[in-house]
């Protein structure tokens, strides 16, 4: 090993990097020295001084070229060149500020769209909980039922058993969203929070900034540990940052809780979509959940949980182990666990929060943003081609004085890098501004803080840098592709317009326009499909009245009512409401259709229906009070509605929907037939029409109703059918409720139409985003087409003049130019149609009753594209038609 040699090599490299001028100076001196020695030698041979000098210079050759070659030979020169190119590139940009700004704007839009979408994907799907330790190993845990898709809750005993016996699991914790009414001073407010297992804060590695997290054992017992950790925001806003907050009491759901901790700033809990403001241990679930004491009830599936796997354990391995555990539970507890298993989901597919809802939309957005980027690149490419024509002279001169083509390519790539780096910086800025934009697209709900942040972390930065390099290559190599064709003589001889070069350039430019048109056509089709689908959803009847029905909730659980008191209150309130002028009817229901809550599902046995061996019939149901179907306008097809007399002391009854009749009674009238629900036999007393239950996009499915009194919940939704405006009925309701109990708080009151709109909000997000980006794409494509046509017209004034001189009218030329533009558009639409037929499949998850190949949609996209293209060509065509043959031909 020649350490000395290596070291020497390193020092020369460093010297040429940090002292380029000195190294250069020495090189010049060395060459001058050479010349002088040669001159002396020549003089000694008897040449005249002039001759000696001339001969020496001739022998050495072009000094400038030797110097450049020496620089090239030194390692530092690549960097030197780069710095030089950077400086040169910046000068070029500043020479043409409008042009550069246009390019950077295009790239900023293209890269910004991508960076924003990436940051959403990162912040919502992949790294949704920045404060949580090792979220890359975190998975969502929920129950599943055989023969049904989707996730259900888990029961607390099942969760504990799983935690005890899962060897691949490092930590597991429960985090179940809940709402609460807080009494602050003399008024009540609502807030969202989580019911968690005692290990919650330890498991996620979040330390409260004041006080403590929960201690083990605090999640055991029935309402036995009324302690709460509050969020930083709640501490700041509602408690004014009180430094002595720990140990103080606060009523949550009317139960006094001791505040034991304040979570750190920037921690919003573990629920994608909403910010959590308080955390209570699972032992307090009765206060927040209703439905009685569930910590020892294996049949009560109410919790949502997360699991962090040990390093190196894969999801498949863990799922295998967990399925085995669930199978053992099924054998040990057949009464509650038959047909039940437990599933593991990556965070980005979490079934019980907004990650799952937004996933299809965000998937589509990634593709759409990529399209916009490509369109922006094509546009920039076109702009650069125009400039490369005007720069031909400069590039040729540089070639002529000894720059190699590789060197020229480096220069062009460096210029591309400057543009794309500025565009990326702008794009990241756009992403930063847009990081909370998704929330703006979702409907406002009072009482809950939506929280869907974009996360611009190292991974998003790295992806953006990758895009930047990709753009650099494209943006730099398009003019380089032109430079390849440069010949030394042509441009130097004068501005002779090399015919072949011009034609090839025109071909590339047209190709880019066709590419742009086809991409934006795909986006247009996508946007139109989503729009059409949203229209279809909105036009679909949910099966109940939406306009004259309002819904709200009075939380009796929160107010600490026991069951008998709640029953009296509910009857009393309904009576008083029915007496109000303008109220047609009012009824309670455990859940209002299309609301956020989920229905219970229960295994059923149907008299006279023999299920196959594999089948475990399970149907979802709702608990409703008398007058529910009248209030919601769900048609009663036969039999009767529930009555006040269908109470806890009367025989069990049920009302079924039409699909259930078809499925289990073969379409025959089931009135008087029996149905076993939760162990008791209920008699069917009515049949109602099908309606939508959880989603506007769901297909008709079996569903039944039981009287609220026979399966009581203390905090049902209240529905009121009224001809009064919402504000009026709200005021009246508040009066009536407070007349009964001044401490009660009402949840937000909305019309059922609003409820329907909220349930389709993810469609609305998709439509809005795709439309914005589709519009952007259309604009970029229009600008691209305009640029190409204007340039073509400017280049062929002589030809146009000649045509005119030979008798073409202005109108002829107008038609000529427009038809050329439309030919390009037609090419783009052709490619676009083929590609769209393949790409729109991506959308099928978001579409409702619209085929991804809907001809009407393709037709309207075509119309929009043609109109845009024609208007983009209009100005250049008008200019062409105004060609003055005399002036053009003489010049």
């Amino acid at each position: 090993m020649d350490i000395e040699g290596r070291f020497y090599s390193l020092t020369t490299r460093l010297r040429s990097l940090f002292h380029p001028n000195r190294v250069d100076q020495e090189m010049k001196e060395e060459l001058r020295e050479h010349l002088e020695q040669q001159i002396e030698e020549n003089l000694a041979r008897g040449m005249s001084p002039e001759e000696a000098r001339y001969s020496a210079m001739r022998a050495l050759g072009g000094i400038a070229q030797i110097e450049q070659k020496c620089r090239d030979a030194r390692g530092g020169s690549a960097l030197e060149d780069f710095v030089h190119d950077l400086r040169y590139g910046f000068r070029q940009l500043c020479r043409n500020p409008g042009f550069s700004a246009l390019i950077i704007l295009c790239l900023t839009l293209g890269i910004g769209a991508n960076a924003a979408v990436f940051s959403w994907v990162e912040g919502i799907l992949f790294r949704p909980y920045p404060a949580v330790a090792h979220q890359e190993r975190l998975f969502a845990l929920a129950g599943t039922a055989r023969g049904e898709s989707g996730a259900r809750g888990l029961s607390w005993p099942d969760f504990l058993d799983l935690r005890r016996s899962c060897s691949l699991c490092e930590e597991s914790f429960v985090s179940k969203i809940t709402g609460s009414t807080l009494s602050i001073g003399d008024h009540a407010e609502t807030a969202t929070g989580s019911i968690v297992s005692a290990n919650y804060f330890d498991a996620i590695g979040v330390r409260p900034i004041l006080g403590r997290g929960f201690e083990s054992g605090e999640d055991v017992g029935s309402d036995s540990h009324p302690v709460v950790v509050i969020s930083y925001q709640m501490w700041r806003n509602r408690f004014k940052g009180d430094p002595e907050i720990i140990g103080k009491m606060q009523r949550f759901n009317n139960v006094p809780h001791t505040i034991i901790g304040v979570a750190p700033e920037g921690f919003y809990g573990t629920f994608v979509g909403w910010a959590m403001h308080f955390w209570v241990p699972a032992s307090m679930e009765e206060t927040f959940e209703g439905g009685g004491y569930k910590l020892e009830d294996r049949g009560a599936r109410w919790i949502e949980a997360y699991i962090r796997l040990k390093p190196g354990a894969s999801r498949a391995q863990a799922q295998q182990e967990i399925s085995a555990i669930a199978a053992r539970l099924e054998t040990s507890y057949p009464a509650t666990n038959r047909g039940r298993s437990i599933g593991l989901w990556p965070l980005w597919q979490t079934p019980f929060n907004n990650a799952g809802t937004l996933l299809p939309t965000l998937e589509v957005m990634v593709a759409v943003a990529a399209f916009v980027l490509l369109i922006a690149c094509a546009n920039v490419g076109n702009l650069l081609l125009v400039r490369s024509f005007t720069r031909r002279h400069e590039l040729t001169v540089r070639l002529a004085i000894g720059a190699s083509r590789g060197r020229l390519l480096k220069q062009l790539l460096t210029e591309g890098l400057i543009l794309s780096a500025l565009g990326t910086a702008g794009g990241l800025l756009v992403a930063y501004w847009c990081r909370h934009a998704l929330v703006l697209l979702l409907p406002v709900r009072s009482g809950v803080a939506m929280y869907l942040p974009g996360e611009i972390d190292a991974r998003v930065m790295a992806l953006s840098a990758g895009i930047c390099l990709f753009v650099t290559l494209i943006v730099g190599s398009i003019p380089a592709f032109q430079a390849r064709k440069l010949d030394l003589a042509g441009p130097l001889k004068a501005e002779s317009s090399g015919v072949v070069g011009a034609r090839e350039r025109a071909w590339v430019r047209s190709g880019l326009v066709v590419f742009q048109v086809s991409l934006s056509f795909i986006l247009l089709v996508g946007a139109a499909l989503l729009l059409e689908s949203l229209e279809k959803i909105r036009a679909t009847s949910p099966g109940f009245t939406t306009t004259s029905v309002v819904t709200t909730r009075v939380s009796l659980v929160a107010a600490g009512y026991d069951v008998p008191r709640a029953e009296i209150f509910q009857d009393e309130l309904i009576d008083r409401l029915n007496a109000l002028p303008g109220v047609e009817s009012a009824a309670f229901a455990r859940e209002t259709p299309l609301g956020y809550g989920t229905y219970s599902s229960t295994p059923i046995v149907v008299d006279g229906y023999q299920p196959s061996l594999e089948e475990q019939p399970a149907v979802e149901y709702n608990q409703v009070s008398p007058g529910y179907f009248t209030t919601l306008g769900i048609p009663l097809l036969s039999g009767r509605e529930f009555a006040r007399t269908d109470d806890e002391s009367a025989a069990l009854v049920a009302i079924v929907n039409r699909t259930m009749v078809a499925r289990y009674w073969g379409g025959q009238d089931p009135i008087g037939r029996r149905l076993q629900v939760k162990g008791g036999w209920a008699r069917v007393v009515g049949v109602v029409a099908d309606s939508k239950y959880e989603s506007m996009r769901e297909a008709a499915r079996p569903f039944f109703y039981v009287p609220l009194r026979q399966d009581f919940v203390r905090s049902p939704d209240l529905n009121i059918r009224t001809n009064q405006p919402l504000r009026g009925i709200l005021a009246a309701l508040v009066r009536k409720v407070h007349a009964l109990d001044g401490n009660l708080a009402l949840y937000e009151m909305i019309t059922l139409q609003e409820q329907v709109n909220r349930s389709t909000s993810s469609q609305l997000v998709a439509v809005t985003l795709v439309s914005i980006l589709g519009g952007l794409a259309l604009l970029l494509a229009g600008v691209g087409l305009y640029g190409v046509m204007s340039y073509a017209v400017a280049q062929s004034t002589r030809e146009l003049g000649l045509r005119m001189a030979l008798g073409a009218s202005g109108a002829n030329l107008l038609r000529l130019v427009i038809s050329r533009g439309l030919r390009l558009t037609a090419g783009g639409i052709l490619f676009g149609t083929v590609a769209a037929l393949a790409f729109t499949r991506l959308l099928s998850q978001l579409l409702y009753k619209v085929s991804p190949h809907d001809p009407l949609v393709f037709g309207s996209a075509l119309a929009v594209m043609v109109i845009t293209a024609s208007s983009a060509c209009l100005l250049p065509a008008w200019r062409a038609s105004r060609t003055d043959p005399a002036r053009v031909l003489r010049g």
Partner: protein
Amino acid sequence: MSKPSDLVQGTLDMLVLKILALEPLNGWAISQRLKQISSDVLGVSDGSLYPALHKLEHRGWIRAQWKSSENNRRAKFYSLTQLGRKQLEQETANWNRVSAAISGIVQLKEA
């Protein structure tokens, strides 16, 4: 004009290393020596010598020092490093192999 037309690529490096193995020299002296020993057959132009010197220095095969020459002028003297000596051995061995093979073919007698 600057390309060593008949010189096998990379051979110039070997020649320079060989010359410097004998004694440290400055650029002009190297060019004189090249012409002298190869009797101008190789036609190495000074234009290609300097980039080669800078490349060899950059690779750590030769090192440069500013010294005073005989007539008291400052000049850049190049000398061989340990790494360069090893490189020279390698290239010489390589050259011997290749040239032996080529001359073997060239000297084949027609049957």
